């Protein structure tokens, strides 16, 4: 379980990115973090695993205060926090397998990782994960040979290889088409359910967030302005987060996407049936 209390980040330039952010994420809950660009969504999830140093406040993961950890302990804590990135952030020139195995870096010695001689259990697990995300045939390909959706699946497998207790997910669908976006979101949520993993998904697509998450937190200028179930995200709440906008039109567009996907699937089933 994750507990944030009074988390604040002030950048060196004096910009207040986060102000007094406090919330709990119980085991197995998938949280969608929404808000306009520059609201501090990226900063918030990076303050949790301290890729960005918070200025004050506490981050408790299963009882350990991550903010107080020194470098060695921080590395041990980080390996328990899987992270999935916008634009995938795979190491492009390494193979898919190396990218997945890099999730084990915190657990093996430098020499083992340097010679790529990982323990057998890690390798078996990596193959299992690649199979889970549907990429077992691509293990030896270089990461830059894959399509966007496939790369994000490798990113998911890398995060899961860490055997995480928490997933931090930064705009997982930002560079994917609507259909692939939904597939990736579905995969992430399924995996969180399977493993009872808590997750924070930083996402700018409100409709995807509502559809796939258990709870929505709205951030505006570094403050939590909404926290509740997806159903409670009314036009009023959206206006509080983003400012005035025509929300019905957006919802209609998203419904069209979903419908198109349904039709695609029905079509595919029909074709399979015909065979």
């Amino acid at each position, binding site marked *: 379980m994750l507990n944030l209390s009074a988390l604040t980040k002030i950048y060196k330039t004096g910009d207040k990115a986060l102000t007094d952010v406090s919330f709990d994420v119980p085991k197995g809950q998938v949280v969608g973090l929404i808000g306009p660009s520059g609201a501090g969504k990226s900063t918030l999830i990076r303050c949790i695993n301290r890729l960005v140093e918070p200025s004050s406040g506490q981050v408790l993961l299963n009882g350990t205060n991550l903010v107080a950890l020194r470098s060695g302990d921080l590395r*041990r804590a980080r390996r328990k926090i899987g992270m999935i*990135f916008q634009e995938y952030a795979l190491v492009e020139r390494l193979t898919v397998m190396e990218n997945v195995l890099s999730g084990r*870096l*915190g657990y093996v010695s430098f020499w083992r990782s*340097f010679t790529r001689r990982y323990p057998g259990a890690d390798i078996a697990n990596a193959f299992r994960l690649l199979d889970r995300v549907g990429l077992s045939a691509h293990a030896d390909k270089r990461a830059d040979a894959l399509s966007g959706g496939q790369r994000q699946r490798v990113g998911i497998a890398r995060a899961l290889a860490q055997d995480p207790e928490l997933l931090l997910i930064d705009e997982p669908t930002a560079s994917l088409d609507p259909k692939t976006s939904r597939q990736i979101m579905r995969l992430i949520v399924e995996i969180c359910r399977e493993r009872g993993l808590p997750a924070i998904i930083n996402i700018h697509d409100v409709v995807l967030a509502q559809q796939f998450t258990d709870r929505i937190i709205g951030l505006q200028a570094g403050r939590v302005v909404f926290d509740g179930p997806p159903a409670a995200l009314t036009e009023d709440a959206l206006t509080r987060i983003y400012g005035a906008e025509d929300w019905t039109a957006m919802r209609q567009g998203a419904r069209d996407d979903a419908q198109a996907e349904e039709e695609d699937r029905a079509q595919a089933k029909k074709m399979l049936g015909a065979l």
Partner: protein
Amino acid sequence: MNSTYPTTWKRPPQLVQSRVWRIVLTVGAIAYLLVAIGSVEVNWARVVVGMERAQRFIAGFLQPDFTTRWRDISNGLVESLTMTLTSTVVGVLISIPIGVGAARNLAPSWLYVICRSIIAVSRAVQEIIIAIFFVALFGFGAFAGFLTLSFATIGFIGKLLAEEIEDIDPAQAEAIRATGASWFQLINYAVQPQVMPRLIGLSLYRLDINFRESAVIGIVGAGGIGGTLNTALSRYEYDSAGAILMIIIAIVMVAEYSSSHLRKLVK
């Protein structure tokens, strides 16, 4: 909707805003250039004598003599090639840690300052001057040449490698850091794959620079084919000198083409 828009547009001046200053600066620059050209003294009598020597030189070049001094030439060549290869390997090996230390995004500031200073010193001093220094220290021969070229390689590769490391995609490094990787694992997994093709390319490029330099520093006594060339010239054996020059040109061309081909291959 009836407003009329201008039909002409001029690019606003980018560097000097004032028109007067632009004219003054242009006229001043041209005047200085004319005065400077006027101040170069040309001694035409000596040019004529020089042209005569150039004729003999070209004649020698047209009838290169590979055989008379072949032993000297082949010794010089072997020495030069040995010097080139060993100094490139040693220089690159030393410059990798220095380049990593000189990358602002990886190194703490004290290490950054140290590594940048080493690079600055190596780059500030021209090879010939370093060669004269090492020849004075360790005597004539290939050892001084080897040290000179290794030293020059450190500055070259170190600086360019550091710049390449500073330009890596930070997202890939961040992702590896987020897995709980140590600093060395970060270098091995996030930095090395991104800079390796460039490092190989630079090393091959430096290999052919080092061969060319080995011919130059030989003239001040640091061994190799340059020494042989110098001897041939001072003995007025222009036919042997021509042969040596042709061999140098041939080797440089082979090195250049094969290295650019190899660089295209590693992507």
